């Protein structure tokens, strides 16, 4: 049994139009996505802006309504997470993208980090304070800083406050939506190292949403690539980076800037080649509407959205 199983997930947003504000059409933000998470591993969800990766993450945690499909967590159906048992909701938490806008500027760190504790557990003020101080130590901030406000912290420190809030209830699954995109490289390194440390310590499972393939490769065990609400390819890190099969994945991998300036010409030539292939064979890989086909397995771990042969 998979730790978390997402089956044929669809999230459609209505487009309202006309004088009566009737629904005239739908935007299919996520249109038939299926994947499984393994316990203690990190699963990367990759795609360009507008590919539906964030919507997928938000739908799992219940921040977007699911149009159809199912989400199963340890054998329990949590498609409608608001009706799920509170023990399940405690188990799944989220780290947000922007550490500057995801912390309430009018609240002290104590209140920010204690909020989930207040929602789900009954603790006395004193116990709560001790728990928050422990959490602050866990994320490497001084326990005295619980009376400070978010603006008194740097970007990396703020993101760690966001992480402290996410792990406050000892969750088992964390949905991390571009947790380092807003940070500088050295701060990014700090947060990534830290996320790996607490993963080991607390046996966490991550759903890591991102667009920076360097970071994704560093963090993830399995990767799913999304394009316009559908999967184009799924596999292990090795499958995706050394043996990409779908032209979209190839193009994405080719676009990663190489840190070695000596390979510049080589990389540029390779990119041109992939771009030509992309333009020529776009229709072979996508259907008439420009959407990806259904995934087909090409090995035990590697699935690619290729058209039916013949």
């Amino acid at each position, binding site marked *: 049994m998979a730790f978390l199983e997402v089956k044929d997930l669809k999230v459609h947003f209505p487009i309202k139009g006309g004088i009566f504000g009737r629904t005239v059409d739908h935007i299919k933000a996520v249109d038939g996505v299926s994947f499984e998470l393994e316990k203690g591993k990190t699963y990367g969800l990759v795609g*360009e802006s507008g590919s539906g990766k964030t919507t997928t993450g938000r739908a799992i945690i219940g921040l977007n309504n699911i149009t159809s499909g199912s989400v199963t967590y340890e054998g329990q159906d949590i498609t409608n997470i608001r009706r799920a048992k509170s023990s399940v909701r405690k188990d799944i938490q989220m780290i947000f993208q922007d550490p500057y806008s995801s912390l309430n500027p009018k609240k002290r760190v104590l209140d920010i980090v204690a909020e989930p504790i207040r929602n789900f557990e009954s603790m006395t003020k004193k116990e709560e304070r001790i728990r928050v101080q422990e959490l602050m130590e866990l994320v490497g901030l001084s326990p005295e800083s619980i009376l400070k406000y978010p603006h008194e912290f740097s970007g990396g420190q703020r993101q760690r406050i966001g992480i402290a809030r996410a792990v406050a209830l000892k969750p088992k699954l964390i949905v991390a939506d571009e947790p380092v995109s807003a940070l500088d490289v050295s701060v990014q*390194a700090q947060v990534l190292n830290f996320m790996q440390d607490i993963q080991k310590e607390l046996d966490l499972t991550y759903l890591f949403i991102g667009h920076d393939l360097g970071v994704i*490769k560093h963090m993830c065990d399995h990767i799913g690539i999304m394009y316009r609400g559908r999967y184009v390819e799924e596999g292990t890190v090795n499958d995706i980076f050394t043996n990409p099969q779908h032209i979209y994945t190839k193009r*994405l991998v080719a*676009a990663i*800037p190489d840190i070695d300036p000596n390979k510049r010409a080589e990389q540029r030539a390779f990119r041109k080649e992939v771009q030509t292939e992309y333009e020529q064979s776009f229709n072979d890989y996508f259907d008439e509407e420009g959407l990806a086909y259904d995934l087909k397995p090409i090995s035990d771990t590697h699935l690619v959205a290729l058209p039916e042969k013949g």
Partner: protein
Amino acid sequence: MSEKLLEIKDLRTSFRIKDDYYAAVDGVNLTVNKNEVLAVVGESGCGKSALAFSVMGLHTRAKIEGNIMFKDKDIANISPSDLNKIRGKEMSMIFQDPLTSLNPLMEIGEQIAEVLLLHNKQLSKEQRKEKVIELLNKVGIPRPEQVHGQFPHELSGGMRQRVMIAMAIANEPELLIADEPTTALDVTIQSQILELINDLKQDMNAGIILITHDLGVVAEMADRVAVMYAGQIVEIADVHTLFTNPKHPYTRSLLNSVPNSNEAQDKLHVIQGIVPSLQNLPREGCRFSARIPWVAESEHEDHPELHEVNDGHFVRCTCYKHFDFPDNEEEQQHGIS
């Protein structure tokens, strides 16, 4: 062989906070040649954007000292009207965020035409439109006739950035400053935009200052690289030297903290402490010393200067000679024995 285009001499840009001035750019010397991409790298708050804005004369309240020699004029000390004749024509800038840098109430075509109109009154309306469409074509915008009449919100992020570039190159500038031109974009679009900037360099023989914090972009684009920390240049070298033989502790730390897409690392390097704010910037001694506490005080210079270690390769302070990465946390605290 290379022709000097811009020479920045001892530039100091200070901002007033309460009653004191604090230098965000603190004694920077730089040259940019024709047909060259000079990358300026550093983390947020290091002064790289303040440097670019100083060159363009876009700071309204800052105190600017030093000289910025563009060709044979000192643009740090000329009148605003003289500067306006150069700006947008001989030198121009691509801004970071294309959505907030474009006027939301103005058609794309009109915005680009405005740049042409300001510097060339002879063109008729029809000629301007023709030129604008030619420019849109040049930056790779499909259906330029249609885009000409559209508004910024109707375009995607990549398209908007192309419009910004079209505006910047409208008058074929000799110096182009690109301030994080691809930070807001997806990787595939980033590679297209970088390719475009590279083509422009070759076509127009322009000098380009590329400001970025993405070392991958630097490795792909730059000819020379200047690394900035706390308002100063700490290392400057050609791109191959900088990536294969970096000297300054800050450069080496930065390079080590990038998740390298080619090899699996267990742990990324983390630079201790935080970038000091403008008011708390150490003005005496080596500014990076607080972040590498295991290097003994005596190994830093009192007044760190740029030393030429190799032809065209400059490093600030002598601490690089004694610097090594600590193996564990204890060494980080107490120094390497």
